[in-house]
């Protein structure tokens, strides 16, 4: 502002002739019609700023075009005087009183702009990164109106909050349902405006009055963090609320809903699963209901494994409640097995499903013929399903009524009935016959023999079916696993030479990628001879 110097105080019209507006933010109310008639209507707000810049900086355009020396003496004077206004006003240029009076007189006479726009005004960027300078004047006007609207709504929103607070303290009128409806609408509008103006996260929670009292804890992420993920807005919002309620250790129905919301977006989020279980146990919610819900989640997330630990936690928690009720346990075991069967129909070797199945057998004592039958069905479907073979081994050799607790998987367990060993040997042999190069039943057979404390020689005849004319010209081997087992049989019989031949033929012809292993096995034979 010019000082109240004598010169200026005498000036009849200190403001310039042209309509000038000082701060670019105030330009919004300037309609284009007021612009100088010779300038074309500006397409963008930055072009408009440029026009105004030239209008408030007389001779600037001319100087840019022809240079300072190209100006006429009158233009030069105007140009110089314009540039001196601020320094003189701020007394950076010491002038005698007379000279100053003369200066201001000239300024007034010429109507030189006292306040001028700076060049290259930066409008900043909007939330999508677009330079606001590229907006059309109309677009900018819309934006300004939205700002005003949001400000008005925020005032009403704060009024609502204080009214509700007073009502809660019984110090004011009740909040009517109309008020709440209005507030809900208001929040939706505010959310839309905020998203529009600032790209602010405004998912369902920020709009939901139920979550008002929670101050979300946003991601604490430093600048340049490694492997930083551009989370979708709704996910970022949900986990911000999750952090807040977890920090407050809140276990309430709304938290349960929040966990479901997060799980629907990211089932791999192990923390939300552990928290969900905690809520269920604190609120003592119905376990069957939770399992029904979980089934749906599991079917749409086949590869997820958090689901299975959650399920196991639920069972551990539920079992003591129903321990006495045999019928309930039996029903539960049946429905769990049915669900497992559905999951295995999608992926018959899913490791987590089989691990849970093994857990369930122990927990609910499902050492039943139907469990064996259901496992057997999967072996019949695909005799190479090694997960099913492994489960069968567990079912047969860990059944507490027919096995010794804590007996290792390769230990002889005298408590296992001979009839069981016989049955399992026969089963493995039947399956080997279907596809002799399938390793699963061979491994199973060896496991059964160890459990039964049987000599390998007891299956020698069976194994020899798959190997003929060993080491001769007509040599025929239909299973490298038979040859492997035969080497062990011969070793057991003390026939190390024949055992060595088996290993050599495996190495040379029938399974050469494992040459290094077969050679090591041969050194084990020598060790056996030396120690014998």
């Amino acid at each position, binding site marked *: 502002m010019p000082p109240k110097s004598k010169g200026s105080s005498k000036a009849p019209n200190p403001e310039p002739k042209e309509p000038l507006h000082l701060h670019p933010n105030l330009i919004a109310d300037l309609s284009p019609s007021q612009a100088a008639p010779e300038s074309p209507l500006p397409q963008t707000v930055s072009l408009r700023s440029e026009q105004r810049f030239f209008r408030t900086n007389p001779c600037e355009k001319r100087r840019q075009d022809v240079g300072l020396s190209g100006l006429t003496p009158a233009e030069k004077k105007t140009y110089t005087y314009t540039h001196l206004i601020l320094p003189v006003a701020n007394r950076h240029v010491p002038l005698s009183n007379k000279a100053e009076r003369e200066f201001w007189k000239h300024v007034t006479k010429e109507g030189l702009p006292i306040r001028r726009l700076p060049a290259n005004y930066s409008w900043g960027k909007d939330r999508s990164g677009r330079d606001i300078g590229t907006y059309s004047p109309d677009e900018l006007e819309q934006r300004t109106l939205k700002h005003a609207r949001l400000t008005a709504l925020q005032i009403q929103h704060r009024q609502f909050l204080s009214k509700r607070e007073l009502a809660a303290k019984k110090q004011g009128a009740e909040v009517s349902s109309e008020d709440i409806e209005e507030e809900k609408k208001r929040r939706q509008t505010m959310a839309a405006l905020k998203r529009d103006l600032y790209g602010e996260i405004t998912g369902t929670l920020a709009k939901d009055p139920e979550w008002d009292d929670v101050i979300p804890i946003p991601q604490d992420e430093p600048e340049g963090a490694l492997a930083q993920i551009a989370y979708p807005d709704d996910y970022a919002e949900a986990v911000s609320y999750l952090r807040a309620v977890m920090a407050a250790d809140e276990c309430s129905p709304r938290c349960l809903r929040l966990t479901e919301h997060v799980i629907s977006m990211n089932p791999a989020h192990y923390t939300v699963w552990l928290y969900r279980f905690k809520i269920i146990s604190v609120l003592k919610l119905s376990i069957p209901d939770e399992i029904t819900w979980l089934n749906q989640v599991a079917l749409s997330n086949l590869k997820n494994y958090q689901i299975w630990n959650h399920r196991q936690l639920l069972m551990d928690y539920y079992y003591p409640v129903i321990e006495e009720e045999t019928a309930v346990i039996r029903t539960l075991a049946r429905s769990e097995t049915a669900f497992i069967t559905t999951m295995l129909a999608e992926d018959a070797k899913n490791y987590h499903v089989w691990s849970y199945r093994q857990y369930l057998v122990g927990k609910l004592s499902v050492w039943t013929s139907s469990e064996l039958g259901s496992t057997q069905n999967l072996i019949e479907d695909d005799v190479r399903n090694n997960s099913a073979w492994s489960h069968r081994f567990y079912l047969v050799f860990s059944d507490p009524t027919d096995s010794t607790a804590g007996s290792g998987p390769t230990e002889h367990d005298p408590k296992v009935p001979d009839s069981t060993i016989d049955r399992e040997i026969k089963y493995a042999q039947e399956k080997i016959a279907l596809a002799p190069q399938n390793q699963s039943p061979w491994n199973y057979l060896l496991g059964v023999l160890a459990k039964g404390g049987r000599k390998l020689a007891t299956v020698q005849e069976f194994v020899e079916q798959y190997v003929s004319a060993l080491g001769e010209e007509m040599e025929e081997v239909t299973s490298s696993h038979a040859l492997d087992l035969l080497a062990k049989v011969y070793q057991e019989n003390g026939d190390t030479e024949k055992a060595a031949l088996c290993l050599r033929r495996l190495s040379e012809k029938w399974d050469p990628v494992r040459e290094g292993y077969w050679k090591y096995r041969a050194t084990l034979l020598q*060790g056996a001879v030396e120690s014998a």
Partner: protein
Amino acid sequence: MAAATAQTWSDSPSQVGSDAPEYSIPSLFTSDPPIRDTLETGSSRVQDATLDECLPFLTGYQHSECNAHGLPHLDRGRHINFLHKQLGKLPGAFTSADPSRPWFFYWCLAGLSLLGEDVAPYRERLIETVRPMQNALGGFAGGFGQTSHLATTYATVLALALVGGDEAYDVVDRRAMWRWLCSLKQPDGGFQMALGGEEDVRGAYCASVIISLLNLPLDLSPDSPACSAGHTGLFTGLAEYVRRCQTYEGGVSAKPGVEAHGAYAFCALGCLSIIDSPHRAIPRYLDVPLLISWLSSRQYAPEGGFSGRTNKLVDGCYSHWVGGCWPLIEAALNGPRGAAANPGDHPLPRAMESLSSRDGLIRYILSCCQDQSRRGGMRDKPSKYSDAYHTCYVLSGLSAAQHKWDLVTPRAHESIVAGDVWTVSPYMEGEQIFDEEDRVCTVHPVYVIPQHKVEEIQSYFATKSGF
């Protein structure tokens, strides 16, 4: 070497077409296996499809440029680039990785180290990134505001060790870490992955890595759930827990009584090799001949790579989970180098030669596991996309196949959890099928980060026996 023998025995024609360049590839790795059953099932169908998928890569047919052995070069620059990118800003499609971001730090930094890159420049950023992921009650979570988890803590501690430096080490709140580990220790000797989380062999391995790198006290705090079973230390009953996870097939399962799986075999051997030197701990707790038989069965031909379970498909990541077992098994069999004989800990003969086909694995890795598009990175098999996980573990497996590890001196006493001295040298037996430029760096067989990084962090914490 398997390759040399294969050429002598096989009379079946190689599948390389007559117009294809003449490569020296043993027919073992270009033709169908010698025995195939006719019975078709779901397993055999996907196995056959995998052969069809891999053979064009194995024969060199699919590659624009190969060496004389029919192997494409390691696309080092692209893999490096891929890993750097995975540490940068990731799009919203990675949201499911929100609870496992520390794994990305470890996979990428370990992978870059294997490719010879200096990862120390990531130090400051890593420190600032993991700081908010540590919880006051101990351990690191998958992200800010999440629950601490053994897997993400393991990955974070290894990542900090990889970038190195006192400032990185000091991020860890050791006292809180110890208390938290005590709260995870279970009455059966094992460790839960998180409070209320699952208990499996991963927990046993992750916990022992963390304890031994940070030199945490081994005492158990009196409020640990394991105290009810009479345990007095973090390691008591742990090896017995691991033992119970060996299955009738010889491999190791996630928990006692389920199916043997390659990833758990590595965890079991790694855990035992921390509890005591491998030549003592492994034979004491596992049936080694049966384990070797199962591990060896994981390698298939013609693919050359490893599978994770019986009758499952090869996958590049088992190059590490199964391939990484071999150095530990060899140490278990051979004992300390230069010792007069086996110190009488076990009656098993030494392994004079490699127990697996190193050439087969190298072939699978270089031919089938590299994404040779501009994307770079390593993958499960040709039909899959590359990712940071596979890049790390395929490279680690490649390193194990290219080098030989020897246990030189075992730790002074079995009650201390560090001090085994290992040496590594290029594997020199037979003809080398890869070019020297395609050799990757080495990582410690137990900790899977460079050996000097293990020594640096251990010696830093060696001075802090308390907190």
